[in-house]
């Protein structure tokens, strides 16, 4: 639905909520609409279902019941019609019943159905409470009684479904914690012992509930504490996709949860023309940026003045906002903001954030070991049964195998992308772009802008603390004479369009190729630590291939590009001596670069003295300057980048420590990761329901055996654990095979893109990587599915009485 100004100048914007149900309005509206008939029904209970039979009211029953039922149906019909014809609440955008007609009718039917469902869902509890009060329906009202019975059965099944879901959810807790906490749900249920003295009063039941919850939480925290400490002691490397995933999932703040921005921060309606309204978060971010800007020593006086004025204005606006916005008050409070306004992941143990699959696996493992140590569990019986029902076991395990294998393959893909981010970039390299550019592709560096940068001598770090020794751009003897030259690589990065050779009759296709034109190949090689495969050689600085009389443009290519271009001529990859066509010229491959694990794999490197590069408008300017520093460390890179960006005053430049630049290009990775996790969760549904079905059936077939086990002295919790272990064993075997199958994807080459979300982006050739993190995530995933599917059937076995079991 679009919206435009009514006149050429003004019309209200269409709300983005249109066509979508508004849950709050719907709830309020349906409750209001249905409470009235329910209350009326309550008032006439004495007529419909009298406790004793007073004379003179029997004749009223039928008309009252039919009147009320009619009224209830009327409300339902009205609700359905309202949704169908007026759209979703708050009914501001009624639907249009115009062509195509069938769509309009379908839409109306859908909305009517939603209206009825919302009505039913929102009053379900009240409804149930009310109908329960009908204890003695007279024989004359048998149809009414039957209707009531059906309705109560229906509603009970809904409550049972809700309860089941909660139990399924809590199966993710460690079993020890769950067993201890179980009296919180049913205080009269014996779990750790065979019997328990019934709690007869509300107070004693409540006391048991609270104690059980506290005990469960303590066990949970203790298990977490052990797992976090254990994993912290393991020599696990930092980084990778799982840490990023945890940071993304736990990226919101407690303040966001308590006071969501969309609810608490509303743009004022009387905002003056031309003024943009900022949320509290945006105001504070802007203040931070302006503070950084005003501290820039290399800022032009006029810009400094502008920045100071803008900062003063923002400070004023923040003060004004504090008076009206509780969010702003919390965010500017020095104590509260440190707890409430920081991402949640910063408040949690760092080991958990970086290695959560290991922490959770350790926790589950410890939990099981503890329980097995404490008491005997009929494991042999369980595993023998799995073998007896091996066909069902295999079928269920197969579902786990497929799901886990797919998850491992998908994670391996994203892992390959993260490894590119982490593998590209040398710690002591600094990357310089033009000011304001967010990507190499959009950078424009003139000769004059960067001609003196390589001569910088850095004596202070970012905090103006003197360095132990000055940092400079490194020098290395180059050329036949061994003359020392700065390791500063001047580069022009461009993306070119290449027609793909197609067979007769096929439609023409094109692809994009990334070209990096260098001032000097050998210097670029030294700066980027880039070697060629044996038999290769670097192109000459003048860009001329003397041996062919200038017929070919000489270049070296990355492994990904070699594979892609090789496919055009029926080779697995191009090698030194092969040629290809690009920009209406023939190019000669002088060598293939060892680019595995870097983003340079899909690039073609050539001299900047090249007709094709000049025709593309890049020959007279660079996009990037990459310098190797005298100290090859992250700290040196960051200090130099800061100096160039904030202190260097001969030109406006943007600089990054090279690894930081590539680590920023993770926007696409995060998007893919989010989708993969969503998909994995959906696929998990299959595995979970599969194992649940199997376990339910398996337990149903062994009811008597469970009774025998109880008679033999096995306690309730031991029965629970034995059946949980059975489902976990299926999940474990299925998951293990899935991980093994997924491991086959390790080393596969695939193409994708990397982007920092600021425009631009790079096509990359990546190597799929199944590492210890991926396998741990796969195994955790399978065990979680096993637990989710196994607990409800195991609980059902545990809760039955011995006599019922044997009957």
């Amino acid at each position, binding site marked *: 639905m679009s919206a435009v100004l009514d006149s050429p100048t003004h019309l209200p914007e269409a709300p983005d909520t249109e066509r979508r149900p508004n849950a709050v309005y719907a709830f309020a509206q349906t409750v209001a609409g249905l409470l009235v008939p329910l209350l009326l029904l309550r008032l006439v209970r004495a007529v419909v279902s009298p406790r004793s039979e007073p004379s003179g009211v029997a004749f009223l029953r039928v008309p009252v019941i039919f009147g009320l039922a009619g009224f209830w149906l009327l409300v339902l019909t009205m609700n359905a019609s309202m949704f169908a014809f007026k759209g979703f609440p708050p009914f501001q955008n009624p639907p249009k019943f115009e062509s195509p007609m069938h769509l309009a009718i379908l839409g109306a039917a859908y909305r009517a159905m939603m209206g009825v469902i919302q009505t039913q869902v929102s009053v379900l509890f009240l409804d149930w409470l009310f109908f329960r009060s009908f204890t003695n329906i007279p024989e004359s009202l048998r149809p009414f009684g039957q209707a009531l019975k059906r309705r109560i059965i229906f509603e009970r099944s809904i409550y049972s479904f809700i309860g089941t879901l909660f139990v399924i959810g809590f199966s993710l807790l460690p079993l020890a914690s769950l067993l201890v906490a179980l009296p919180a749900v049913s205080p009269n249920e014996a779990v750790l012992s065979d019997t328990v003295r019934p709690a007869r009063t509300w107070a004693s039941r409540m006391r048991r509930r609270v104690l059980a919850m506290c005990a469960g939480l303590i066990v949970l925290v203790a298990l*977490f504490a052990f797992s976090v400490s254990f994993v912290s002691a393991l020599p696990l490397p930092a980084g990778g996709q799982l840490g990023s995933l945890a940071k993304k999932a736990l990226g919101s703040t407690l303040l966001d949860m308590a006071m969501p921005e969309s609810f608490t921060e509303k743009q004022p309606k009387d905002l003056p023309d031309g003024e943009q309204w900022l949320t509290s978060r945006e105001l504070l971010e802007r203040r931070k940026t302006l503070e950084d800007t005003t501290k820039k020593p290399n800022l032009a006086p006029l810009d400094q003045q502008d920045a100071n004025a803008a900062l003063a204005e923002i400070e004023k606006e923040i003060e004004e906002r504090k008076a009206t916005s509780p969010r702003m008050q919390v965010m500017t409070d020095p104590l509260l903001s440190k707890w409430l306004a920081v991402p949640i992941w910063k408040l949690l143990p760092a080991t958990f954030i970086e290695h959560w699959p290991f922490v959770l696996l350790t926790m589950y493992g410890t939990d099981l070991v503890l329980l097995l140590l404490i008491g005997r569990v009929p494991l042999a019986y369980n595993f023998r049964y799995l073998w007896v029902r091996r066909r069902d076991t295999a079928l269920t395990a197969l579902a786990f195998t497929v799901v886990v294998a797919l998850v491992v393959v998908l994670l391996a893909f994203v892992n390959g992308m993260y490894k590119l981010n982490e593998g590209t970039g040398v710690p002591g390299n600094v990357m310089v772009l033009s000011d304001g550019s967010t990507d190499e592709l959009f950078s424009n560096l003139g000769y004059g802008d960067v001609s003196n940068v390589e001569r910088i001598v850095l004596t202070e770090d970012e905090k103006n603390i003197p360095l132990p020794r000055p940092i400079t751009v490194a020098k290395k003897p180059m050329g036949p004479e061994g003359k020392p030259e700065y390791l500063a690589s001047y580069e022009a990065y461009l993306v070119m369009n290449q027609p793909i050779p197609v067979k007769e009759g096929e439609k023409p296709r094109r692809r994009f190729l990334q070209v990096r034109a260098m001032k000097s190949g050998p210097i670029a090689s030294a700066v980027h630590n880039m070697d060629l495969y044996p038999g290769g050689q670097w192109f000459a600085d003048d860009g001329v291939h003397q041996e062919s009389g200038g017929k070919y443009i000489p270049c070296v290519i990355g492994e990904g590009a070699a594979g892609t271009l090789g496919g055009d001529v029926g080779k697995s990859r191009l090698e030194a001596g092969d040629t290809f066509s690009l920009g209406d010229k023939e190019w000669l491959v002088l060598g293939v670069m060892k680019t595995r694990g870097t983003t340079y794999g899909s690039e073609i490197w050539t001299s900047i003295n090249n007709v094709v590069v000049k025709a593309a408008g890049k020959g007279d300017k660079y996009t990037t300057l990459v310098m190797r520093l005298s100290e090859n460390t992250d700290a040196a890179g960051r200090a130099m980048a800061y100096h160039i960006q904030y202190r260097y005053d001969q030109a406006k430049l943007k600089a990054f420590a090279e690894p930081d630049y590539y680590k920023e290009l993770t926007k696409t990775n995060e998007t893919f990761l989010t989708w993969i996790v969503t998909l994995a969760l959906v696929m998990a549904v299959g595995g979970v329901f599969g194992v649940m079905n199997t376990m339910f059936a398996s337990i149903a077939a062994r009811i008597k055996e469970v009774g025998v086990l109880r008679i033999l002295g096995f306690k309730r919790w031991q029965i629970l654990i034995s059946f949980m272990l059975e489902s976990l064993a299926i999940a474990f075997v299925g998951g293990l095979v899935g991980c093994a199958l997924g491991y086959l994807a390790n080393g596969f080459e695939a193409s994708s893109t990397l982007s920092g979300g600021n425009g631009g982006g790079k096509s990359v050739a990546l190597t799929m990587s199944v590492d210890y993190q991926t396998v741990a995530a796969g195994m955790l995933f399978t065990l979680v599915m096993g637990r989710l599917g196994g607990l409800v059937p195991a609980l059902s076995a545990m809760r039955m009485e011995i006599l019922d079991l044997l009957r």
Partner: protein
Amino acid sequence: MIPGAPPEMGGGGLDPSLFLMSGYLLGMLGGMILLALGIGLVTLPIFFLTLFGIEQVARVIAETTGSFAAKLVLIMFRGLRRSPLRTSLTYLALFVLTTVLVFLYTILSFIGNVTTEKESNFKAIVTHKTVIPSQMPPGYYKEFRRIVLEELPPESRPVNGDNDLMSWSFVGGSTDKINRRPDNSMFMFCSEPGKITTMMDGLDDLTGEEKEMLDKGVAAMKANKQAIIVSQIRLKKMNLKVGQKIKLYGLNYPDMEFDLEIIGTLPDGKYDGVGFMNKDYLDDLLRQKPDDYSMKDKALNLIWVRLPNKQAFERLNALVDDPKNFNKPPIKLETASSGIGSWLDAYKDIFFGMKYIMTPAMVAIMCLVIANAISIGVRERRTEMAVLKVLGFQPRHVLVLVLGEAMLVGLMAGAMAAFLSWFGIGNLKLQIAFFGAFIVPWEALVYGPVLGVAVSLLGSIGPALSAKNVKVAEVFARVA
């Protein structure tokens, strides 16, 4: 020092992070349960009500006609009601998995559609011959228009003349001069306003209110050069509203400031994340810049032309390729589908994975889920199957009974998933290349139920055959 805070936050003493972690994980668990609850509450009542409705119809038919088929259907329904929990779980699993398959189909069919040439709407794109992003002198548009409208043979010229030509300039700008970030930046297609509703895919076939509103917006853009239309999602991200006047500081046009007025929004799901601006305003600003302004000769990014057929394309291609027409820089003409295909080349392995790995794997999981559920049901009901045979039911009837139960659940799950995806969700917000939203195609309404039935058939054929072959004597011997 903050008491109780972690050391890195300036605190000391008790570290509460483990409690927080436990609390957060429990909270997350609660959220997941509520989500599952939501899905169940929305779909399960409809599922059971529909089953109930069909059962009542079958009952009426069975009672009035005495039809054996209707009686068989009634037994099927009784089988489904026998274990509502198992039926619900199977239905939910199939429903969720089919929904994902519908989304995968939506993406793949959309990509397939945009990379397929259409004879009825044959569009071609003119861009720089080799360099991405394509940047051409603005004068190229005038020259290209002359060639198309005058040099091409009359039968090869666009049917609607100048209305079938459109120029594009990409303009990026930030509302914050100093801190230019994605969330305060806007990316716009700068073009002739009149062409927005005639040349843009997805906007040229609008109907009803959407068309009316967009037409009004286009008229407003023609009347006011500084007027822009922006996608709803972008406005929301930037905290902007229709009617607001804004200043954008050029990202790809250095030292250029755009004073703009937001006069409307694009239809939901169409060109999400971008806006449309009047080309005349950009031309005015460029004219004010000195001759050596870096973007003066690079302000035209691409040209679109709608041609009557492939032959017209070949003829025009020859003219465009001729160096005497365009040589500094050289340009190329390609079909729109080929142009889009080039951009999507980087994603080809991802699409391959979606099509040939994920889709079959999902189908396999669906088959396994249904196979599991049905095989358990069959094993539990062997006595019932034997009794049916004793009562005169043929083995094929037992086969149909089991297959029917599975297919009913599959049909309902597939139909529900497809309907809710198509009508309830409508479009899938996902950024792939420059596509921000994928509209669920109506075909999903057909494929969803068909898929549900097909996987149910595949998954239940094994258990159904086993039920068919139940030996009455064996079953009763065991019972005895």
